[in-house]
């Protein structure tokens, strides 16, 4: 890392995360002005986007190579009052909370009090959503059966393909013109809507061009003031780049990175979509520029490294917009889930690893930043070399990159009906979600608490937490004679809660379609332009709505314990068990010991427990898969938690697997923390007994002690281990390589361990920023020692 990058990195790390009022103020002024009143909603949104980009302040660091900030400075995070209006109380919490704070100054607070809140009260999408959702939905949501992603962030959940490296905004505009010209008002009853949406996209493209050119201008004046002739030349060069891209397709490596960055800013300024935005297969997109320039001698590997490092810092400057309420519990982090994909296969199914894949891994290793996150798509065609390099980085305990199965992703996507070419150009984004990059809207709609539903089943439809009857009456479990009866009751409850979730999804997706189109994002995702249809209205080629199951391990173990002790061996009656659960095992420690120690558990390649797992998976899959969503696509499942397993655990009493009240559930498809005792191969075997290819992603977390990766041999055996898991169609695996002693020390002395990054669930985070329950849970995840 050279001095310039060191300085930029240091400034990025040091910058305090703040809540900026600038965007909220501009949006409010725009809507108050009435400029757009006569326009369609789509055009209104495009003009709003334009207004922000024309009027927001610019920030360019003295040493920067890639320019552009969403806020007025690094880590100044905007608010999106049209989506989620932060109250003064929210702001006070954000300002003062211990973990993941956002500083709010008096001026911002005043601005909200005086103009933003009075104008937006009652109009935000969040308020619309809660006003439309029926009480049944609200009750279930409040009980912690599921969470709702779209209640304070816009749908997004997508990644970009190669198109912006081949086309500029001007090219998109000519495609829009073509689409406009082909509109047939005689035969197409939706022609007017399409025209409006296309007009909106055209305006958004124009806004982006002028935003970039504002930077060009600013860079020219910086150049005029620069004393150092070399920097002056550099600034003028950067001004030329910002003038050229993203209006036109990039020609150089530098232009390509800058073009992406402007596009990224556009998406996250237009609204606050989940997963921010994501360049996707970065090594693939950039390689043609890199190879060409290296050949021509206009770029060295070192220059490419510096530009990539500068690019990395831009991501780190952009924390996730602040979350409040339940959403902050399910996903409490500054991480905004941009996940750089490396490796995999090309569209013609060849090994896609190239020198840039390795250079980017070197950058990841050196930068050690929270954002962006990174992963390697490992194909059977990729050389072990790439995986070894990735594991060398994992070994340092940084939690990145995670490893994905490229073949599994392709099969998952084709099973969902994507063409094989589109699937091969896809990857995983967010935490582990498979998607057809550049062509798919694949939103996560909410986490789904599989364990809570068991608790409700055991109480015949009543939530013991609140005493409310939120489920249906599936029968008094004490009357069940066989495990199958109990499981049937569970499956019935599950279906009932999925129904309620989907009812909510349908409402929320329509609210976003009607009131909150995203013309800028629509430019970027096929086939919104061709179809004249917004991303939020189903304009994408593929539209998927996911429901993410959480607590697979905990629920499996709880069901297994019931089957084993109550029904098969009949060593306990259900009544006894339930009464012990009611008192949270207090005074029944030996009883709990039997549940913990002498019961088959998922994660040990134990057929007894794993059979229950498969039944559970199938029940969840059947309840969700294929049901239509509001965008012409379908609902699908995936299995990942972010941090929701902690929240979900907090709303559940003791469970039959020995889990105490309020403690975290298992995460992803990982076994219950500490329940896997046969080592990593048994975990991989158990985890591969569910059919990953029928999901849109699963998350398996493995914690290894550093010693196991100590030498080349340890790494090489781990390579084989991962290859074996993927041969069994495992979707993803990630590693935490930090010993418990280090983590304990970090709990005790957080200030000395501010830089300690650990793998949480599909992303890495600063250990000291995690809540105490999550810290504890990470320490508890079984560490597999080297044998």
């Amino acid at each position, binding site marked *: 890392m050279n001095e310039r990058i060191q300085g930029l990195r240091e400034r990025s790390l040091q910058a305090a995360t703040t809540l900026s009022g600038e965007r909220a103020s501009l949006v409010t002024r725009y809507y108050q002005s009435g400029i757009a009143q006569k326009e369609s909603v789509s055009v209104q949104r495009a003009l709003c986007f334009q207004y922000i980009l024309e009027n927001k302040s610019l920030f360019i660091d003295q040493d920067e190579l890639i320019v552009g900030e969403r806020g007025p400075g690094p880590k100044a995070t905007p608010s999106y009052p049209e989506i989620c209006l932060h109250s003064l109380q929210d702001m006070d919490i954000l300002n003062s909370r211990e973990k993941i704070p956002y500083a709010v100054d008096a001026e911002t607070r005043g601005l909200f009090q005086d103009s933003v809140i009075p104008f937006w009260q009652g109009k935000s999408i969040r308020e619309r959503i809660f006003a439309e959702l029926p009480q049944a939905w609200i009750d279930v949501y409040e009980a912690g059966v599921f969470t709702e992603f779209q209640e304070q962030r816009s749908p997004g959940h997508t990644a970009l393909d190669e198109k912006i490296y081949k086309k500029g905004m001007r090219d998109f505009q000519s495609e829009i013109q073509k689409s406009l010209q082909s509109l047939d008002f005689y035969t197409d009853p939706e022609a007017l809507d399409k025209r409006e949406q296309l007009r909106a996209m055209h305006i958004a493209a124009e806004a982006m061009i002028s935003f970039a050119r504002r930077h060009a201008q600013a860079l020219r004046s910086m150049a005029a003031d620069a004393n150092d002739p070399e920097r002056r030349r550099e600034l003028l060069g950067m001004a030329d780049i910002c003038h050229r891209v993203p209006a036109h397709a990039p020609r150089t490596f530098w232009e390509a990175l800058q073009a992406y960055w402007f596009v990224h800013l556009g998406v996250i300024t237009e609204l606050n979509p989940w997963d921010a935005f994501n360049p996707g297969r970065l090594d693939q997109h950039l390689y043609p520029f890199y190879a060409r320039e290296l050949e021509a001698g206009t770029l060295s590997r070192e220059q490419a490294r510096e530009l990539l490092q500068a690019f990395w810092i831009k991501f780190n400057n952009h924390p996730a917009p602040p979350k409040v309420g339940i959403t902050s519990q399910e996903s409490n982090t500054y991480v905004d889930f941009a996940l750089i994909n490396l490796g995999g296969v090309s569209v013609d199914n060849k090994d896609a690893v190239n020198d840039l894949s390795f250079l980017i891994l070197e950058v990841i290793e050196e930068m050690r930043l929270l954002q962006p996150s990174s992963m390697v798509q490992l194909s059977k065609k990729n050389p072990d070399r790439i995986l070894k390099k990735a594991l060398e980085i994992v070994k340092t305990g940084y939690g990145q990159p995670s490893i994905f199965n490229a073949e599994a992703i392709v099969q998952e996507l084709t099973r969902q009906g994507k063409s094989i070419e589109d699937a091969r150009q896809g990857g995983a984004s967010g935490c582990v979600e498979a998607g057809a990059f550049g062509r798919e809207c694949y939103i996560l709609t909410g986490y789904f608490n599989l364990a809570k539903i068991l608790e409700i089943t055991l109480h015949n439809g009543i939530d013991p937490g609140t005493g409310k009857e939120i489920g249906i009456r599936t029968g008094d479990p004490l009357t069940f004679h066989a495990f199958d009866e109990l499981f049937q009751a569970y499956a019935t409850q599950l279906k009932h809660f999925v129904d309620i979730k989907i009812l909510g999804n349908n409402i929320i997706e329509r609210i976003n379609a009607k009131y909150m189109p995203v013309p800028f994002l629509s430019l970027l995702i096929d086939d919104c332009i061709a179809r004249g249809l917004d991303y939020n209205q189903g304009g994408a080629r593929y539209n998927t709505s996911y429901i993410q199951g959480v607590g697979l391990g905990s629920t499996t173990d709880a069901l297994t314990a019931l089957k084993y002790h109550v029904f098969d061996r009949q060593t306990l009656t259900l009544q006894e068990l339930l009464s012990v659960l009611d008192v949270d095992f207090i005074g029944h420690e030996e009883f709990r010991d039997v549940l913990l120690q002498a019961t088959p558990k998922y994660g040990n390649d134990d057929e007894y427990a794993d059979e229950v797992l498969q039944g559970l998976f199938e029940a969840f899959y059947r309840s969700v898969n294929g049901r239509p969503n509001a965008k012409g696509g379908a609902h699908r499942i995936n299995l990942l938690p972010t941090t929701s397993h902690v929240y979900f655990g907090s709303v559940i009493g003791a469970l039959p697997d020995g889990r105490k009240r309020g403690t975290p559930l298992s995460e992803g498809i990982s076994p219950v923390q500490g329940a896997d005792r046969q080592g990593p191969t048994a975990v991989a075997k158990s985890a591969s007994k569910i059919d990953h290819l029928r999901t849109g992603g699963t998350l398996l977390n493995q914690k290894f002690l550093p010693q196991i990766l100590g030498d080349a041999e340890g790494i090489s055996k781990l390579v084989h*281990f991962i290859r074996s898991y993927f041969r069994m169609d495992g979707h993803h695996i990630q590693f935490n390589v930090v010993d418990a002693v280090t983590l304990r020390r970090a709990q005790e002395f957080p200030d000395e361990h501010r830089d300690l990054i650990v793998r949480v669930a599909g992303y890495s985070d600063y250990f000291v920023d995690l809540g105490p329950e999550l810290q504890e849970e990470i320490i508890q995840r079984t560490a597999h020692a080297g044998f």
Partner: protein
Amino acid sequence: MIRQDLRQTSGVIFRIQKYSIHDGPGIRTTVFFKGCPLECWWCHNPESISPGLERAKPDEARGSVEPANWFAREVSVDQVLMEVEQDRIFYEESGGGVTLSGGEPLMQPEFSLALATACAERDLHVTLDTSGHGSGNLLGQLLKQVDLVLFDLKFADTARHKQYTGRENDRILNNLHRVDAQDTPYRIRFPVIPGITDTPASLDGIGSRLAGLQRKPEIDLLPYHSSAEAKYKRLGLEYRLQGLQPPSLQHLEAISARFRQYGLRTTGGQP
């Protein structure tokens, strides 16, 4: 096919360890036989020395992280095979397989032979990890079934061998020559116990002994580490190497250099 009755042959083991990555090539499952004729001061599995099924201090063991490891169990060849087969995909992917270790596999002749034969029939790569102290006849039969032998050699000198392991080494050395005379690949495992096995005289003794063999085996250096100390404490056993420090990397390199003078190659030795 191995005779049905052989598959019912049973033996006493104290652990089946999956994802074994230091006991032969690839990812392996190691079957730890219970019972060992030697009592090495540095033994990492002191609970494995006595033969038979008795428990090792069950009260302390209950609280340990891996309670299952502390209990011996009697198992049939079929039962072991069932567990071993579970990880077949990992062996195939990594070139791994099954390792018979201990304790000392040679202490349970029928069981070790039946298990090795059954694994070989199923096309599993079999490694025998042995102290060499056992029947030469049995070893000869096992050599036909296994793909690799890891032959532990502590001392060339008989007196020192007796002092630190409780047994003389004539039988071991005879067996070493027996292994050397056959075709089955083998490696020497040499525990580097500072001040005990690594004195210049000891190293020279081993060096010249190995240099005199036809096949000049490679040596895996197994550096001492003190992780077993806590186990001794839990078992209520005396740990005679208390306070002993692991060898340094430089020291291990010096040992390698010394063996190289005898024309012997070494691997491993990461402290």
